[in-house]
């Protein structure tokens, strides 16, 4: 909101400056005109006191120079305040009036046609000053002219007419004639003053209205801007505490108040707790709980009614009456925070000025409260979801850890027995122990898969800023799987063209992704088959293709391929350990990296998995 109050006369200095500069110019010309007239009259042989005119001209030139000096430049440089500007304007109009009166006297007094030029100062006063000053000028001029007329009649003040040579018409005017002159002039002058003042007044009011409109529009724009920044501020934060702090700070700023607070209802709805406050004394909010049932005011607000007061005096209305007056709070405004008809708390604004909140402020505050309520709801939902997800992951980690340790012990014992360390065993015993070992290992790899899945979810290990060199990835995959493939008599190849860009994501994550795909390919490809990993560049992505000549995936199973624990029937029938978790992990990683997966498979012929991974941001140092 504007720090400068809307002042209806703010435009005055500029207007006065402009008019003053115009008057200064007119005076130069008028002076020149008068001089020319005097010279011409003199040359034409008219007998009159020319030196008196020259004297008046000199005076005009003198004060016009002074005004010219003062009116150069900006209004705020020369004469700082509007009051000073009014004074300057008043002075020059006064001087003009005096000069014109003098010229009138010199050119024939009340009978002189110059007399009507005396209307000019009246117009000027009406336009530039106030109606009152126009009437005052009018009165002063009439007084001056009356004085002149009186002097002419009583003491024989000379009234040389410029129209009639003095010596040719040197007669005393009749008092009635003078009175008629004066009367007509007075009537015209007063009507002119009244008319000019009325027109100027109307115009000025319209200008002021326009100014106020513009001001209101600017205020409205600022409020919209603030609502937007509240939204932005609280929308970008997901932590409840952060949302509350941003919201209270922004609200206090928009409302231009000393402080603001958010009180939230406890889950049972019985208490209100100060959740955040801005600009309020520490003691005011620290551990403050309000029992709703014992606070009729809060009860009313929670029931959906806004509350506003401009005079915090009735202490019984407030549970913290002392605290409010200690903080010199005079005006308060409370608004229920509700989302979908459910009230979650109260938004409050506090101001030291009495009667601070207008109806428009209240309406605006209602809007702000709506936004704050949505932001709080949003943050709460986010936090709840996060807690649930964390708890689930923690539970999964714990369970899998606790399952692995005894299984490892079991397998160690089995191995010792099977290898004959504890004495010879017969073939049948050996066969059953082998089966036992296989079942235990299936369980172990299932637990491993679960652990990997849980860990992946626990912390998003996908760092979009990390970069991995494809060569390193390829090297690792080759090293990890070469022996296994050879053991199974499979042809295993990793193809890597030169100059591939780094891939987005950490090495460990990408390795895990590729390990799952390659181990599947090896697992489900019978002996003498082949497994190939091909890297390629494609449209801002790195394309990794893992192809095999294995058992393939039945078309009907493809949609469920990436679900946890899913295994195709033909995969289950193979004598291989599998958990059905590998592809779920692959999907999760690819999704987090913003990549894409494609499958092509034919039962009994083979499978091709294609993963498109985004190229890493350029400036980052690649992972080596």
């Amino acid at each position, binding site marked *: 909101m504007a720090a400068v109050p809307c002042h209806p006369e703010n435009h005055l200095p500029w207007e006065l400056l402009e008019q003053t500069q115009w008057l200064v110019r007119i005076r130069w010309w008028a002076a020149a005109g008068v001089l020319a007239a005097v010279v011409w009259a003199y040359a034409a042989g008219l007998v009159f006191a020319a030196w008196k005119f020259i004297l008046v001209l000199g005076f005009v030139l003198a004060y016009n120079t002074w005004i010219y000096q003062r009116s150069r430049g900006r209004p705020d440089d020369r004469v700082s305040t509007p009051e000073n500007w009014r004074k300057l304007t008043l002075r020059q109009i006064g001087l003009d009036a005096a000069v014109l009166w003098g010229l009138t006297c010199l050119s024939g007094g009340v009978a002189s046609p110059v007399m009507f030029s005396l209307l000019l100062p009246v117009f000027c006063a009406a336009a530039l000053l106030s109606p009152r000053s126009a009437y005052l000028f009018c009165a002063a001029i009439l007084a001056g002219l009356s004085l002149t007329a009186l002097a002419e009649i009583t003491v024989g003040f000379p009234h040389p007419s410029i129209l009639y040579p003095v010596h040719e018409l040197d007669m005393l005017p009749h008092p009635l004639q003078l009175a008629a002159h004066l009367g007509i002039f007075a009537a015209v002058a007063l009507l002119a003053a009244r008319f000019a003042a009325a027109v100027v007044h109307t115009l000025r009011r319209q200008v002021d209205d326009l100014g106020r409109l513009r001001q209101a529009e600017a205020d409205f724009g600022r409020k919209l801007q603030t609502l937007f920044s509240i939204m932005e501020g609280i929308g970008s934060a997901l932590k409840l505490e952060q949302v509350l702090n941003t919201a209270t700070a922004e609200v206090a700023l928009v409302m231009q108040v000393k402080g603001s607070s958010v009180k939230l209802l406890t889950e049972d709805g019985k208490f209100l707790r100060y959740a955040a406050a801005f600009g309020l004394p520490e003691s005011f909010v620290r551990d403050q709980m309000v029992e709703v049932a014992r606070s009729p005011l809060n009860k009313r607000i929670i029931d959906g009614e806004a509350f506003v007061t401009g005079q915090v005096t009735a202490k019984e209305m407030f549970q913290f009456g002392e605290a409010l007056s200690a903080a010199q709070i005079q005006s308060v405004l409370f608004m229920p925070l509700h989302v979908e008809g459910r009230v979650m708390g109260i938004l409050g604004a506090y101001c030291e000025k009495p009667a601070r909140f207008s109806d428009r402020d209240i309406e605006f505050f209602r809007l702000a409260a709506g936004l704050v309520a949505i932001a709080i709801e949003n943050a709460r939902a986010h936090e709840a979801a996060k807690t649930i997800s964390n708890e689930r992951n923690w539970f999964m980690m714990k369970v899998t850890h606790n399952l*692995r340790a005894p299984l490892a012990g*079991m397998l*160690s014992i089995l*191995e*010792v027995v099977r290898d004959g360390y504890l004495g010879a065993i017969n073939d049948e015993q050996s066969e059953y122990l082998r089966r036992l070992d296989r079942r235990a290992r299936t369980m172990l790899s299932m637990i491993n898969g679960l*652990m990997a899945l849980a860990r992946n979810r626990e912390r998003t*290990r996908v760092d979009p800023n990390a970069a991995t060199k494809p060569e390193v990835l390829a090297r690792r995959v080759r090293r990890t799987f070469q022996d296994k493939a050879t053991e199974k008599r499979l042809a295993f190849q990793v193809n890597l063209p030169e100059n591939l860009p780094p891939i987005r994501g950490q*090495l460990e994550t990408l390795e895990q992704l590729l390990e799952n795909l390659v181990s599947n390919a090896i697992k489900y490809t019978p002996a003498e088959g082949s497994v190939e990993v091909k890297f390629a560049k494609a449209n801002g992505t790195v394309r990794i293709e893992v192809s095999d000549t294995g058992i393939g995936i039945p078309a009907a199973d493809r949609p469920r391929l990436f679900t946890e624990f899913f295994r195709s029937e033909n995969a289950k029938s193979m004598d291989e350990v599998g958990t059905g978790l590998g592809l779920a992990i692959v999907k999760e990683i690819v999704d987090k990296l913003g990549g894409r997966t494609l499958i092509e498979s034919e039962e009994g012929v083979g499978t091709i998995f294609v993963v498109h991974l985004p190229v890493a941001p350029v400036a980052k140092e690649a992972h080596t």
Partner: protein
Amino acid sequence: MDNKGLIFVVDDDPDIVATSRIILESNGYEVQTAANGKEAVSLLSRIKPDLVMLDVMMTTDTEGFDLAFKLKEDPEFKDLPIIMLTSFLDKVRAEGPGPFEFILGEAWPVEWLFEKPLDTKKLLARIEAILKAKKET
């Protein structure tokens, strides 16, 4: 069988300790065991093992690592080779000191890291290699 050296097995899982003892003794090693870091430290004042097999998670999640670091900082034991065992290799890889490679770097106070359940053949081969290298220096 001839005595190929003294292996000190530190693990809180009695089954792992028992099976390790059987395997190692059958392959000509002498075996001493401890169930946790504290016991291991007190035993180390009396015995002079040639190699330590150390579990990562015992009383605490990082007890094995803590002990390994302590031994490497101790001038008396800094040359004592350590083979670390864990059921949670990927967890250790993710949370251990620095990225884990098959050849362990400076940050790792151990000579080798094995995942449980142990591959007996690889373990025996590794122990032999480490002890041989140690003898040569």
